[in-house]
């Protein structure tokens, strides 16, 4: 497996090998799936959306709907306005969403389609809406596409009516439904009324019912998105992802925000709970304290297997930051930390974490990296554990490293999007998974006389 990867690192400036990111449009599409009765719409060639739907479907094992302008060569020459006009009409006719969320592609961006004016020219049915965001594939990554589409919704819909609605807005970074449900559960336990946007739970984890619904029950509703402008305040979950939409909402509707680290691990979750507690007068129910205490208990009980163990973590910036924070809390050394998404802030934030735990000299962090980099690092000096998306499984096999899947995409396993890796419950799940991975390896490798049935 990956036998052609040499140990020696050579500088690359042009060739991307085994990418650890993908392009903006899929992020925009995923964001739009988190809006109720919304049809995501890709303004570009039809192949884009075919890839994106496939990718999301494989992660969630759920249908991921989206439409497309189906550019042909002619559209490239004359511009995509006609396609958009016809396309949105057909979508409203056939698929009858309440809203169409358009994102651009490298194609429509390269030819310079002006979506603002195109949309002005559309003949949109009454009570229906069209929003858009620009998501050129050659800028940033799928993470940028996700938050750009959030900005698009906010820009088009959110309003400050002057009357506060008493709600707290939660703007989460790219999350699995299991995590989104966890955010909502905790807010409910705290008695904090919220609007969460976007919210793919109930959409990308919908139950088997014998009756397919193109628009499942879940998703943030349009009035809720409009109402974001009347929220008391905003909690952004994921510093690397949702700062921009928070800022957007502040600019447009003057709602104050606090952006927190994505709540993976103890301290990051503490921050989320503390932020929620500002909204409810500081009341933190025992149930939450109990969950937290169970997590700490578990970490103490099992720390003997983690201390000083090295790991490599890769994936999207907020996931990686959260996971890095958790493994540091567990006493592990996040020897290699890598994201494919560009942005120096990632490196600064990981370094701050390394320094906080005094492991700066033992750890490397990289943005705009790829899995070929990671593999070469591992070849040069191995790690005890690999944490990240499915594509790392090649490295895990090649170098015989225990592997815990987390983040996007996890294409080759089932059930994972249903359960959280965030907040205290999610950390319990991760600690269990990580300890299982490490202990399974010990059980595999020790000689018979060291094979323990107790631990």
């Amino acid at each position: 497996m990956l036998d052609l990867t040499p140990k020696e690192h050579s500088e690359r400036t042009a060739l991307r090998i085994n990418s650890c990111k993908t392009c903006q449009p899929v992020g925009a599409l995923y964001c739009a799936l988190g809006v109720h009765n919304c049809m995501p719409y890709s303004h570009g060639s039809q192949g884009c959306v075919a890839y994106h739907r496939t990718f999301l479907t494989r992660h969630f094992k759920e249908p991921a709907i989206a439409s497309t302008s189906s550019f042909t060569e002619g559209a490239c020459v004359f511009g995509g306005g006609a396609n958009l006009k016809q396309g949105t009409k057909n979508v409203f006719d056939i698929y009858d969403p309440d809203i169409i969320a358009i994102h651009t592609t490298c194609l429509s961006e390269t030819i310079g389609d002006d979506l603002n004016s195109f949309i002005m020219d559309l003949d949109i049915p009454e009570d229906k809406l069209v929003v858009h965001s620009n998501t050129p594939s050659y800028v940033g990554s799928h993470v940028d596409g996700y938050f750009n589409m959030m900005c698009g919704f906010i820009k088009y819909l959110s309003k400050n009516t002057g009357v506060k609605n008493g709600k707290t807005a939660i703007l989460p970074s790219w999350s699995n439904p299991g995590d989104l449900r966890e955010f909502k559960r905790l807010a409910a336990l705290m008695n904090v009324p919220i609007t969460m946007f976007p919210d793919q739970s109930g959409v990308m984890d919908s139950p088997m019912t014998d009756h397919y619904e193109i628009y499942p029950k879940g998703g943030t509703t349009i009035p809720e998105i409009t109402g974001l402008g009347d929220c008391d305040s905003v909690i952004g979950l994921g510093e690397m992802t949702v700062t921009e939409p928070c800022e957007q909402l502040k600019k447009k509707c003057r709602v104050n925000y606090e952006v927190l680290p994505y709540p993976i691990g103890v301290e990051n979750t503490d921050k989320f709970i503390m932020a929620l507690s500002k909204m409810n007068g500081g009341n933190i129910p025992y149930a939450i304290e109990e969950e937290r205490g169970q997590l700490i208990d578990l970490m103490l009980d099992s720390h003997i297997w983690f201390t000083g163990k090295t790991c490599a973590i890769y994936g999207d910036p907020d996931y990686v930051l959260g996971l890095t924070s958790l493994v540091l809390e567990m006493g592990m050394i996040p020897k290699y930390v890598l994201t494919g998404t560009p942005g120096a802030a990632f490196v600064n934030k990981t370094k701050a974490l390394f320094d906080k735990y005094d492991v700066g000299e033992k750890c490397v962090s990289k943005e705009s990296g790829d899995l070929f980099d990671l593999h070469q690092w591992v070849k040069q000096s191995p790690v005890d554990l690999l944490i990240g998306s499915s594509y790392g499984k090649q490295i895990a096999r090649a170098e015989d490293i225990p592997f815990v899947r987390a983040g996007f995409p996890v294409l080759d396993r089932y059930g994972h999007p249903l359960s959280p890796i965030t907040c205290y419950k999610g950390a319990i799940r991760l600690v269990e998974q990580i300890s299982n991975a490490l202990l399974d390896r010990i059980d595999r490798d020790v000689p018979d006389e060291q094979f323990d049935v107790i631990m």
Partner: protein
Amino acid sequence: MDAKTMVLDKYSARIYKNRKEHIIVMDGNGEIPTIAANARSAPGIITERGCCYAGCKGVVVGPIKDVLTITHGPIGCGFYSWGTRRNQAKASKEGEPVFVQYMFSTDMQEPDIVFGGEKKLRQAIKEAMEIFNPKAIMICSTCPVGLIGDDVQAVATETEKLYGITCIAFSCEGYKGVSQSAGHHIANNGLMKQVIGTKDTPIENPFTVNILGEYNIGGDGFEQIRILNKCGIDVRTSFTGDAAIDDLKAAHMANLNLVMCHRSINYIAEMMEVKYGIPWLKVNFIGLESTCNTLRDIGKFFGDQKLIDRIEAVIAEEMAEVAAEREHYRTRLTGKTAALYVGGSRAHHYQLLLNDFGVKTVLAGYEFAHRDDYEGRDVIPTIKEDADGKNIEHMTVEADPEKYHAYLTPEQLEAVKAEIPLSEYKGMMHGMEEGSLVVDDLNHYETEAFTRILKPDIFFTGVKDKYAIQKDGTMSRQLHSYDYSGPYAGFKGAMKFGHDVVMGLYTPCWGMVSPPWKNRATIEAHIGGGN
């Protein structure tokens, strides 16, 4: 109202007019109706189709195992076509490279779009040479590349000179054509121009063939080669499953081309016949009867009695081996109905395999076929080209004065043609039953609607629609990736397929979909059958 009318009823006039030509109800009078195909999908329609790049890089070029293929463009396209087609590839021998586990992209950034990406492509090739030193590099372009005017062909020529390797650029931008099909065409042209015929490795066995349009998904090609070898037939190369570039280069030395996927590769089959004198035979290794027919046809082509006897012995042996298992599945499947919506040839091939088990196909459609794939090659001269196809180069070749060779004399060839379908394909519609539907470019809405109206027991399709169909209570299996199973080709593959279908239909949880506090739904509880 019949199914077609019911489904079309929802459309606006404009879409109605378009789609009604793509949906055919077979009338069973033996005449093959005309279908609209290879036409653009209307914007806004949720088509399941992919793009030109997907057809070129994803389908044809990607599987070539020892070639380093660089996707030139922003990161997405390279990323999505990484490891997702299940084209199995083994190193030809120890130490030979296998690049299919890797993805390579120029990951174009905004400045590359603004100032041109050739420089980055050149640098990427330089880096690829330094790290991997491959014997060949292929470049596949994505949407922006053509628009910004990067001359990838020039870079390829330069690369060949600079590094002394084979380098081929494919201008397979996603917006070209109306589906993956344009990409197959472009890929085929590239292989024909720059690969096939460039290396004259002689064959060792007169019964040496190429398998065209076999991408070795789930190991189908491995199984076909196993059977052919057992019969005494050598395979020079597949196009392009598990293919090594040097074998592709020497493909013109074979004596017969077997065409599996007519759509994606018939260009090469035709051109090789003209240029190198190699006849092609439409084959089908999907299904027991089909595999037997295919093997017998090959035997007839070569006309060698020993070979023919050997083929009969192999058929007898392999059929005997699967007889009991086949019966087991047939008992469980007879009377079931299926819908098939897949790429270019499977919607046809798998009807025949389903027949082996008594399953009737009530709907079949292609994602990116042309009329000839539905109606047979006879209609080719009557196909009118539209604007979307015009920009795809149509190559013409002529007989190569040095490399042309013919296994059969013209007279022998004529005689054999009377017996076996040489250079001929009758299309999928041929043989489809009265009342069954043929739908081209079946879209998301139609899938949902036809599923509800026709209530097939099984819907074979791709991953994008699979889960929607399943949520609606109908078993669905992916026929692109085989749901991570396979091989399905050949005798043993047919059994694997039978196993998988039975498993899907009889998995007990179908009986548990409706909670006891709801009325039992229409789906019957199937219990047992863990075979």
